[in-house]
């Protein structure tokens, strides 16, 4: 006997280490769940086709676009957003973004940081090409990317 499809569902999601139990409409996107329900507004929305990466978060440790995931799909999962990256102190990656002027308006920055952080977890000292591939799914309209790529490569060197 198959379960019955529902249009409201209680989801249990661990976000930045805190476990939330929430009833959400099944059509709600994860990004809206984070921004509107949990008031974690660091995760941004830049498009409506899953193209820009501003909404990138870690879902069970891997970077995904939270605008292309339903909140109910994250039921039982662990989510990390930019708010969960560092504490009071900036992480070396965050510091490197500032040092290299890798942000201007700062709107794409949370997504960039999440993609870059995932790369550094997997590959502590990435090459320029590695970084470009890892950040290809994140659009920035201010910087032209050069300083962002430098910042991530430098953060990697620092870590290595």
């Amino acid at each position, binding site marked *: 006997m198959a379960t019955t499809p529902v249009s409201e569902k209680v989801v249990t999601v661990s976000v930045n280490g805190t476990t939330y139990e929430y009833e959400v409409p099944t059509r709600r996107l994860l990004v809206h769940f984070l921004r509107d329900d949990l008031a974690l507004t660091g995760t941004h929305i830049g498009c409506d086709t899953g193209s820009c990466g501003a909404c990138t978060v870690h879902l069970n440790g891997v970077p995904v676009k939270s605008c292309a995931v339903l909140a109910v799909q994250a039921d039982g999962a662990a989510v990390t957003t930019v708010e969960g990256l560092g504490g009071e102190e900036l992480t070396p990656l*965050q510091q490197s973004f500032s040092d290299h002027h890798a*942000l201007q*308006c*700062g709107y794409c920055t949370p997504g960039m940081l999440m993609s870059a952080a995932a790369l550094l977890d997997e590959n502590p000292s990435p090459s320029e090409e590695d970084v470009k591939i890892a*950040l290809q799914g994140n659009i920035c*309209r201010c910087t*032209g990317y050069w300083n962002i*790529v430098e910042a991530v490569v430098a953060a990697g060197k620092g870590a290595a």
Partner: protein
Amino acid sequence: MTTTETETTTTPTIQKGYVGQNVPRKEDRRLVQGQGTFFDDVKRHGMGYVHFLRSPYAHARIASIDVSAALELPGVYGTLTGDEVAILTEPFFQIAAEPGANVRDYALAVGKVRYLGEPVVAVVAQTRELARDASELVMVDYEPLDVVVDARKALEHGSPVLHEECGGNISYSGLWEWGDVDKAFAEADHVVKISELHFDRFNSTPLETNGALVEYNRGTGQWTLTCNNQFPGFAAIMMAPALRVGANKLRFVTQDIGGAFGNKITTHPQLVALCLLARKLGRAVQWTEWRTDFHQSMSHGNERWFLDTEVAVMADGTMTAFRTKALDDAGAYLRYEPLGGVIWSQVAPGMYGWRNLRLDFTQVMTNKAPCSPNRGYSRMQQLWFTERIVDVVAHELGFDRVELRKKNYVQPEQMPYETPNGCVYDSGDYPRALDVVLDLIGYDTIEERRKDAAARGKLLGFGIGSTLDSGTNNFGQSQLLNPELQFSGNNEVATAKLDFFGEIVVTLGTVPQGQGHETTAAQIAADILGCDVDIIEVRAGHDDYWNSHAGFSGTYASQFAVTGLGAVKGAVEELAHQMRTLASMVLQCSVDDIELAEGFARMKENHEAALPFMALGAIPNMNNAGFPIDPPQMNARFVFRPQFDVPDKEKKFGNLTLTYSMQIHACVVEVDPETGVYEIVDYAAVDDCGVRVNPKIVEGQVMGATAQAIGAAMFEVFAYDDEGNLLTPNFYDYHVPHTLDMPPLKTAAIETPSPFTSLGTKGMGEGGGGGIHCVSAALQDALMTSGRAIVTSSHNPYHRVWEMIRHPERSREKVEVVSL
């Protein structure tokens, strides 16, 4: 991946301190922690979410609208239609004289829709999803009309007319002529004719779309707009009369803005709709535009044709004159237009010395999204045009492109240089800048690289793009379009105060969107006050309640480094004087004996006699008894006003901008002749914006403008089909370059301080045109050996390059040389 070189010609005009240093940005900490505050982050209790139902047709009569089904849906708070808007508001003020003056533009479509994506009905509901659901229940009966999307056709007799009240599709036309053009052509050795050039439609697509949270205070009759509009002064001028209130009833608040690039100036129609809804429903309303909405309806860059262009050239390569017919496509409404019809003339001759120019300018309206300022607004089109001319002349007459430029550039010894139309180029050394960029890109190795590429089956091309970045508008130029207008000059405001415990607080009228104003303003202030930059707080964003704004307050048109920092300098110098005066009263000496240094006001001769800022802050605020006369208030407000005159309306002559930054870009492309696919394999840009307060921030602007230029040259275009459907309505079809699309970049800077500004600075950030030009030029160079096609469009995607290779005659027939 990027290399930077800097040479400074003259020392900056004020004491070295923080100015000129790469001070880390004050903005960064909150932004890298995801703690920025963007408009969509702000919530209010019980706020309603707004969804705009938009027209699926590019041109149609609205026969009827029925919102009843939407209103019945539980959780729907209300709706707004064009019929209500037409009763509750005045049509927006039009900048244009006749015929454009007759356009009736409202917050929502009234009676008729004129472009696909035009807002028709606004629906407000408890959740974002619900508002959209409800909008699907609104029944709109459209009667489709014929559509015109081609500016050339819009001029034809019998073309569909968008605004009947204008008696046609022309919004503005005027003849701009300086010097003796016909004489110059009569004396020319060669006349190069180019029948058609086209600057394509795109914009900067800031990653954050438009939006606002609007609250109405029934008690005071005032609206508060927590938004991301980048030019509140202009928005208020448009909105207040429409809403039949004073500007005092509109409070604009911004903090962090996710990029704007000019595209967030003309949001007043949507903001007015939100104001009406907040008042009607008695609750806060929130609207967040989507990407598709933005692409279909917001702030496209001006599309422009240059028809029947002729260039007068002497045997030695001296270019003496050009004449052309510019045809500008403003889209369906004139939100900021037809100002594009005059802004170009800030750089009428480009960087070249010709004295005889005729430009017959016509702007038409078509069934496409309305145009409004976009980074490089209207000058970019003109500068691309002048650069195309130079490269086509070189190409057809066999001149060396470098030498031709050096010969025709305005020369350093001519600075300050008055152009044929009375603009004054304040400073610069264009030939030297060109040498620097050629050196960066290794111009002397180009021919070897060309051979090497040929061996790999690739066509290599090299191109140069010179571009000016005119900053600090004289708004008097608007009177060249419409003599009745009462705008002129420019201004910006800042306040500076010393607070209770010695905190220094600076507020700005500007509306930053990533330009680092909090940082550069603090650098200026710290140098003047002789204190640590970290104790200076520059309030983030804009708020009308700070009383630090004026009519032209905003961040647009490359002016912060002059107007914004000029205002900061004025306010902080006044505060410094107050601090020294108070110290002199306490220390019983003359003001001249007091200096501000190391965080103290102290006697120059006796550093022991010093008052900490804390004491100076406390005295007037909390400890002011016993003073025979009032202690200074430790609070200063300064309005910076550049010196301008109203231009001569008859001759269309006068100084239209205060400063002229300059960028020269150069690139190398490799083209696959079978597919037209090409790659930019090398890129260099040199920038001169006078004194650089924070070089890294300046370089960041150069890089960003370059990336946008590469996007516009290769990928980004707002293309329409004949029915007025936008074919690139999202980031799927409107491809924005990403990391893997970026070429290696070398940058360099030279500093020729502006003689006209108090800090020697020049506004900058809009130099991206250089990138569009140099890609056009490089492609034309690459195709030299394969049909000698002429590049006639600013946007050159692979399929267009392939067509140039396959059918060179199609562009060849657009160019002709007559030698006398």
